[in-house]
């Protein structure tokens, strides 16, 4: 064993209590950071998944300008053919075309204005969780059937049930009147009152004839199995679509900028807090190491008089810090994983959290998600900052005069 390492290890235990207290500071912060960061990652992941799964999808093909200003005329011609092309080229089933418009929807007793989405009944279940959430009746089946599926809140408000008729009244693509009668084929419960209140889906073929779309639609949703590869998917899709039709491919961050920004805002405030914790730990290390250097002035003076170079003494102090931080790192990570792992199974709740969670499409119980990154990120930074904090005490050794140092009290 290296002599510096051995000396450093022994020095560390000359003041057992002090070392343990400093290590505890690290363990405390590491534990907290592992848990918090895992929780954050788990939350973000769920927020993204739940929000995108419900409707938006990972990427969408749209006519340029539609995303900023969705107008019925900003449409994609022959959308079903294009969607088929994309499906074939990608070799993926997670592609579905949609048309989107508004209509005044009336039952016998009630009328509401709502968003009408025309979908391909065959492919929509591959890109969205809504079709699977139909609790009464069934999802759409035929591309041209005069049917509609609506959310449970809307069904309650309209006072309709499966099999009842609804009248749709809106304006078509060229300003014509769009009017039709549809049968409620299914009622879904997405868990989000907002979606359940404001959305209705009809088959795309029927949508096109209702709104006089002449084969056109508004977006093609393209999903991937792994959301982290969404940029790759985006550029692949961009290569497939015809270049001369003013189309563009948007990813979820462009489609739902609010989601991304909510995560960024949360990230920023979280990192402010982590930074405070890290700085406090660094101060703790700085104090401990400075004391341990100062109280050994005489000892260091003797060593220098015996010919030990200041660099060697400096590396001794840094090695001590390194050992101490490693101890804090490993214990902190072990405890952090234990606590977090327990909570990934048990989940945890905070009083009052439910209402907030619902707003961001989160379940009431939180489940952190452990990953190598979430485990190592916080403790790694604390480790590095501790080493940096020890630099000042270490450099003091370079200014030590052996003769004066040996006489120090």
């Amino acid at each position, binding site marked *: 064993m290296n002599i510096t390492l051995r000396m450093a290890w022994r020095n560390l235990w000359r003041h057992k209590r*002090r070392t343990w207290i400093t290590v505890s*500071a690290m363990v405390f912060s590491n534990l907290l950071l592992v848990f918090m960061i895992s929780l954050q990652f788990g939350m973000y992941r769920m927020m993204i998944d739940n929000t995108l799964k419900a409707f938006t999808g990972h990427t969408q093909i749209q006519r340029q300008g539609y995303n900023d200003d969705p107008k019925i005329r900003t449409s994609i011609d022959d959308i079903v053919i294009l969607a088929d092309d994309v499906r074939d080229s990608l070799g993926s089933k997670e592609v579905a075309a949609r048309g989107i418009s508004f209509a005044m929807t009336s039952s016998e007793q009630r*009328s509401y*204005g709502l968003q009408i989405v025309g979908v391909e009944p065959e492919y929509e279940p591959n890109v969205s969780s809504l079709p699977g959430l139909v609790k009464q009746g069934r999802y759409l089946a035929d591309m041209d059937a005069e049917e509609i599926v609506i959310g449970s809140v809307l069904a309650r408000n309209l006072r309709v049930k499966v099999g009842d008729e609804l009248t749709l009244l809106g304006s078509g693509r060229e300003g014509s009147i769009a009017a039709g009668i549809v049968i409620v084929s299914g009622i879904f419960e997405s868990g989000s009152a907002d979606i359940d209140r404001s959305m209705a889906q009809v088959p795309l073929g029927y949508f096109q004839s209702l709104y006089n779309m002449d084969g056109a639609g508004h977006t093609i949703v393209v999903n991937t199995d792994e959301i982290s590869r969404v940029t790759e998917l985006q550029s692949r899709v961009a290569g497939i679509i015809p270049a001369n039709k003013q189309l563009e491919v948007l990813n979820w961050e462009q489609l739902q900028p609010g989601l991304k920004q909510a995560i960024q*805002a949360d990230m920023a405030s979280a990192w402010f807090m982590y930074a405070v914790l890290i700085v406090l730990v660094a101060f703790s290390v700085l*104090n401990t190491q400075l004391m341990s250097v100062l109280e050994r002035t005489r000892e260091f003076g003797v060593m220098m008089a015996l010919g030990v170079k200041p660099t060697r003494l400096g590396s001794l102090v840094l090695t001590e810090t390194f050992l101490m931080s490693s101890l804090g790192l490993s214990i902190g990570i072990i405890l952090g994983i234990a606590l977090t792992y327990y909570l990934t199974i048990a989940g945890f709740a905070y009083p*009052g*959290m439910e209402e907030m969670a619902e707003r961001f499409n989160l379940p009431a119980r939180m489940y952190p998600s452990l990953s190598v990154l979430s485990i190592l990120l916080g403790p790694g930074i604390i480790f590095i900052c501790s080493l940096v904090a020890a630099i000042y005490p270490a450099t003091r050794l370079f200014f030590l005069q052996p003769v004066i140092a040996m006489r120090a009290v």
Partner: protein
Amino acid sequence: MTALPIKSIFILAWRNLWRNHRRTLIMLAAITVGAWAMIFMTALMRGMVDDMLLNGIRDLPGEVQIHHPEYRDDPSINNSLGAADEQLVSVMEQPPVTAWTQRVRVPAVISSERESRGVTLIGIDPASETDVGFDAEDVKQGRFLIDADDKGIIIGAKMAERLETRLGKRIVIMSQDPDNNIADRGFRIVGIYKAKLASLEEMYVYAGIGTVQKLLKMDGQVSEIAITGDDYRKVDAWYPRIKQAAGDDKQVLPWYEADSYLGSMLAVMDGFVLVWMVVVFLAMSFGLVNTLIMAVFERVREIGLMLALGMRPATILSQILMESFLLLLIGLLIGNTLAILTIMPLQDGIDISIVAEGMEMMGTSSMLYPALKLQDVILANAVVLILGIITSVLPAWRASRYDPIEALNKN
């Protein structure tokens, strides 16, 4: 020897503190950072929540709302109320209620020549509305409604863009009358508003309540009565009176029940602030304990001598506690000053429009105004001082229990 007077303890502690000024300064820095972070972060959080609540209550609107019992579940024209009767009006005219208004709020479809959208049509009484809900200052083009029978309509800037229409143009509003007949009517756009939360601009259009009632054949009925007092935190003091006056056939809800997200926000924040302070303190406390242990350790012989000369253990204890107290106090002073100094220049608001759409999901606008509250500052200082002294008791107590002979022979 009798107990030392407090003044001597103070002087001893003060001098001991500066025997090792480097260590003291580092510890002071740690306490300062901790206290600053506690107060600064809390002020930002409070500012955000305040903004969220004020926006949210304006949007509801009102601190207390009266509805038909089924209206909230089924916001249809059939679930309307009669206008406020004399008894209710007399209660709503008493302080601390500052304003109240009545509105019609129904789902509708708005169409220009080119586009149509689903909206919520709100019929307002312009005279009383502005103190409770819609802010007349938000009208950026054109004018606000003049009276309840104004024939014009006010729409959001975003909505105007969506409909490809503009000030002075006509749009058609379609809704449903109580017999479920489609009622429609052309309105001229007399004003275009900009809301703090851009998504609201696409949600609401405003017209005179009289005009809307006539269009929908409502015969003087309203959808909601909204009431505002002087402080949203004190709504519990007066809302039961309103409830009583309104009668059992109506639903009367304070804001925190009308929007449970807003309601839970306050409680969650209070809890969060305390957790944050305690966590920062804990991270700090390790350093504090270490500093004291070292301060005691290097003075073992000195303490032994003092004990041998007849100083009471209690005096040793209070001397070390005093040292810790002084350290905490100075750190807090600097930390508080620093926090106030950093918050002051931010009073005009921090521009966070770069994440505006994200903040909108939470219900706050794109300017963040830190709110420094006395109670939070007191809480932060109390947490540090009280928990700090408690943590110091152990090292101090150990020092006071030394055996004089052993301590003198140490080293």
